[in-house]
């Protein structure tokens, strides 16, 4: 096969591992070698543990030799965003606050991936505490987009996207609070899935905004995304917002569920601010679905213009509460200059948090403070109801929605970091999905003339990831965007 190991999919590698043509050690060594060849330029990793990865690969090979393989993920090197706990490994959230933190336990998704035999490879860079859209808010420096190293891979899960796109992992996990999986997937030409709120346990995920956060996969194909989703989905008593629901065989469903689907085009997602090349690529994808016999119908989500404001009130309010735990006392950075306990809190937080985290804590504290709660937080929660209702109304008419994932392709590092509001506008097509708790994915749908990836967003109905993945799979089968790799 001409595709190098580090650029192959799980679906391609699993049969080679199963037949013994390939060992997990060989595959893991190939991924490690690739990582070392590109990491100085891409900077997707906060840390990695080569010995630990090789040990995991050896254990996988031993299981397989003993006839005890655990399935398609057994022996596959996967990277995790550095907000997901792995027992005994660093867990930094790309923050100085947790620069020396070592996780004493596994997240539920980590445990599930270990149970599936995966080789956990590396701690992937992100915006600090997952707050940002470019990975520039990392205390350890920005990640670079493998398609153009002068540009951002997106964020907040930029390291997860860049590592996979560069061939430094076979698939990765990220987390998505307002678009943090889908936007970097779009900017790096990957499949990125944000599952329905409650489908994946958040136990062991560092909390940013608890009513919006979801863990999800980055993959090179919808089939790989389906394999990963099947491995990590399911109810968990350790996350009280985890949902009791049937988990279908997502991978099998990909091939059995066929359209034609009724697809909705929300007119509010195609207005001002949309890059013409992105718009044209999405229109072509819509034309493809129409040619396949899908009914395409224009729909309206009238409260779309309020999504950004609603999000920045609710997300920052929840963040200010969640991040109160970082006080320098039990774990994390403790200031050496604290005169008394209050001073220790204030200085540890001042020294440990970066600018964007401080800004969001300030905004969140303000919207929750006495006298402003009703005007901001409570009102935002009510508007959230209306935003969610918009989507549910649309689903009376259509099966799924098609939109661009990001209004613009990858922008230059430094281009938007001076003005938070401009950066926030990168998420206008993705945040409504989190507010409504819906599943959505981004898949590659083309490139700009200058060679930058473009992503198509499909938004599905609650807990109907199998339909969503099948809809994306139908497009993917007829296009080869997802097979392209960057020149690094």
């Amino acid at each position, binding site marked *: 096969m001409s595709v190098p190991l580090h650029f192959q999919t799980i679906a391609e590698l699993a049969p080679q591992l199963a037949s013994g043509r390939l060992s997990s050690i060989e595959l893991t060594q190939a991924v490690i070698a690739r990582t070392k060849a590109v990491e100085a330029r891409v900077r997707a990793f906060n840390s990695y543990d080569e010995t630990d990865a090789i040990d995991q690969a050896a254990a996988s090979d031993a299981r397989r030799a003993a006839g005890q393989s655990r399935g398609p993920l057994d022996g596959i090197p996967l990277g995790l965003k550095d907000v997901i706990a792995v027992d005994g490994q660093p867990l930094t959230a790309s923050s100085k606050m947790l620069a020396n933190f070592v996780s004493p336990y596994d997240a539920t998704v980590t445990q599930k991936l270990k149970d599936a035999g995966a080789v956990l490879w590396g701690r992937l860079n992100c915006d600090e505490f997952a707050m940002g859209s470019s990975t520039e808010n990392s205390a350890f420096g920005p990640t670079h987009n493998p398609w153009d190293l002068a540009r951002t891979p997106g964020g907040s899960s930029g390291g997860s996207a860049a590592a996979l796109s560069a061939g430094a992992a076979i698939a990765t996990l990220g987390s998505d609070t307002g678009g943090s999986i889908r936007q970097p997937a779009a900017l790096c030409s990957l499949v990125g899935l944000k599952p329905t709120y409650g489908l994946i346990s958040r136990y062991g995920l560092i909390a940013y905004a608890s009513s919006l956060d979801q863990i999800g996969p980055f993959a090179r194909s919808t089939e790989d995304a389906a394999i990963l989703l099947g491995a990590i989905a399911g109810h968990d008593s350790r996350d009280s917002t985890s949902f009791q629901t049937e988990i279908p065989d997502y991978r099998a469903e990909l091939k059995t569920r066929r359209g034609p689907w009724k697809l909705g085009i929300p007119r509010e997602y195609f207005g001002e601010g949309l890059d013409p090349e992105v718009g044209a690529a999405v229109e072509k994808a819509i034309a493809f679905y129409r040619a396949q016999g899908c009914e395409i119908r224009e729909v309206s989500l009238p409260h779309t*213009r309020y999504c950004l404001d609603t999000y920045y009130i609710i997300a920052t309010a929840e963040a200010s509460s969640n991040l109160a735990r970082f006080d320098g006392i039990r774990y994390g950075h403790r200031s050496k200059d604290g005169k008394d306990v209050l001073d220790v809190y204030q200085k540890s937080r*001042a020294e440990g948090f970066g600018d964007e985290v401080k800004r969001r804590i300030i905004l969140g504290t303000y919207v929750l403070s006495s006298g402003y709660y009703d005007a901001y937080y409570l009102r935002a929660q009510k508007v959230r109801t209306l935003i969610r209702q918009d989507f549910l109304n649309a689903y009376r008419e259509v099966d799924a929605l098609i939109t661009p994932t990001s209004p613009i392709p990858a922008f230059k590092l430094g281009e938007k970091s001076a003005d938070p509001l401009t950066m926030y506008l990168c998420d206008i097509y993705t945040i409504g999905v989190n507010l409504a708790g819906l599943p959505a994915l981004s898949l590659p749908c083309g490139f700009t003339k200058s060679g930058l990836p473009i992503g198509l967003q499909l938004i599905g109905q609650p807990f109907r990831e199998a339909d969503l993945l099948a809809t994306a799979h139908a497009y993917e089968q007829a296009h080869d965007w997802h097979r392209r790799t960057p020149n690094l």
Partner: protein
Amino acid sequence: MAQSPDLNIDRVAELARLALTPEEKARFSAQLGSVLHHIEELAKVDVTGVEPTAHAFPISNVWANDVARPGLSVERALINAPAQRDHMIVVPKVVE
């Protein structure tokens, strides 16, 4: 960028337990002023009679049996403590 007359940065920083420098206070006030200006849009939405959404899917209270389960050992729970002694976290003096 617009300053928000309402955002008393000293007060909010105190509530948030964040020691900010004068430079940070000026910069965050200006940046958040323009964000708050944008957020004012929400005042235009008619929310009469609309219930607030805290979570996208209504989940009623989740109960668990009150039984002991294995947890972290003391040593393991303290691996990230900034200062410790005799299985306890050392903290600044709280009571005079």
